[in-house]
């Protein structure tokens, strides 16, 4: 996928979110570090263009909630967690770039619930590559890309990588 494809997909996702939720007043967008964060901000901007309402956005780092911390041999870099508004009784739209095993989303749900009790949490992903290891299902999918376990899906975004693209790479 190139820049244009990604822009088109994000625009469709923004419309789907609005369509499904009707009133966007109670929505909060939360991006999962790292590439979910700029994607959440872009979706927020798109929704603002359509509905004229700026949605609060936050960021979530899931390192502290990983289920493999004591199994990996290094310390992951911890990024910002920044959820500035109370999430009690709000609808959270969780945003990530790639949905794979589902373990990141599981950790995100645990992390979010430590901030309060939202009325509902929905999941948006730019790419669903399959191979779930947990019963987790996205509510909005940008693109389904069937992959093999030998492949990696790499999403690059302008804000962090200088350009927008999605690549499928072979594992070394």
């Amino acid at each position, binding site marked *: 996928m190139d820049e244009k494809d990604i822009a088109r997909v994000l625009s469709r996702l923004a419309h789907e979110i609005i369509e499904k939720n009707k009133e966007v007043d109670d929505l909060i967008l939360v991006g999962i570090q790292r590439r979910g964060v700029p994607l959440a901000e872009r979706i927020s901007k798109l929704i603002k263009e359509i509905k004229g309402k700026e949605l609060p956005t936050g960021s979530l780092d899931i390192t502290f909630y990983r289920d493999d911390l004591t199994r990996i*041999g290094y310390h992951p870099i911890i990024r910002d967690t920044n959820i500035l508004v109370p999430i009690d009784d709000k609808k959270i739209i969780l945003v990530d770039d790639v949905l794979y095993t589902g373990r990141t989303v599981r950790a995100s749900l645990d992390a979010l619930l430590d901030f309060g009790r939202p009325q509902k949490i929905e999941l948006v992903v730019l790419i669903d590559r399959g191979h779930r290891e947990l019963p987790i299902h996205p509510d909005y999918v940008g693109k389904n890309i069937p992959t093999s376990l030998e492949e990696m899906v790499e999403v690059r975004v302008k804000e962090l990588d200088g350009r927008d693209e999605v690549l499928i790479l072979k594992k070394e």
Partner: protein
Amino acid sequence: MDFERKDLLGLEELTEEEIFFILDTAKSFREVLDRPIKKIPTLRGKTVVNLFFEASTRTRMSFELAEKRLNADVLNFSPSNSSVLKGESLQDTVKNILAMKVDCFVVRHSTPGTPHLLAKELPVSIINAGDGAHEHPTQALLDLYTIREARGRIEGLKVLIVGDIAHSRVARSNIWGLNKLRAKVRVCGPSTLMPSMIEKMGVKVFFSLEEALREVDVVMMLRIQKERQNKGLFSSIGEYRDFFSLTEERLKLVKEDILIMHPGPVNWGVELPFRMSENRKSVILNQVTNGIIIRMAILYLLLGRSR
């Protein structure tokens, strides 16, 4: 870089890079303390033993809170209600607790080098929570964190440590840490409480507080340990106060925005005046808050991955 150590024993052995890695990791934990649920599952299933052979309120509580915030299981040990009273040795005590399958010991002991000895003998992580007059690494790290938080940097700052330098593990750890991060360190106190070769640690020695305070950015007041008075190292609290108390008069000589620190507990009216004017920048309570996140960071770095 990554933090590869099994133990945290002192600032003397840490590199500049490792110190900054710890400070940056601690910063990530700051936000957790402001959450409605101040607890994260990071060290679930790990067991930490607080082994305090010496009295402590703040450090022990701070460690315990850090351990609980990270969801570790916590055991507290103090010699007064243990088999140490029956004559059990340190080694036996520790090996018996270890046989109960624990992951980390936080050790405070009046004999310098105790944590180092345990670190060598045991396969689990050891954190030094103060060994005699030797080192108190988590205190120095939280002091460095607090300075960086308030000033944005440490390099080039003039930092003055005042009081009983000879008996202070806080001073020693801070001198090592501050020098590694390229601060300019001064020490000041009565000559009877100043170690003779202290210049070798890379500090400038002053015996007059007025002179020492000139152009200083940060001043750390050490607690005067009243129990030392019986040893004749200084004649009276009153005399000590006359020469080494950070009074308002003395504060008039220094930079308006000087950062005032104290590892606690403060003897109000001795090291610091009973009433400090409001425009003075005291960060003593920030030090206490930062102590928790520094200890969370250390526990996470030592226990939060496979080895």
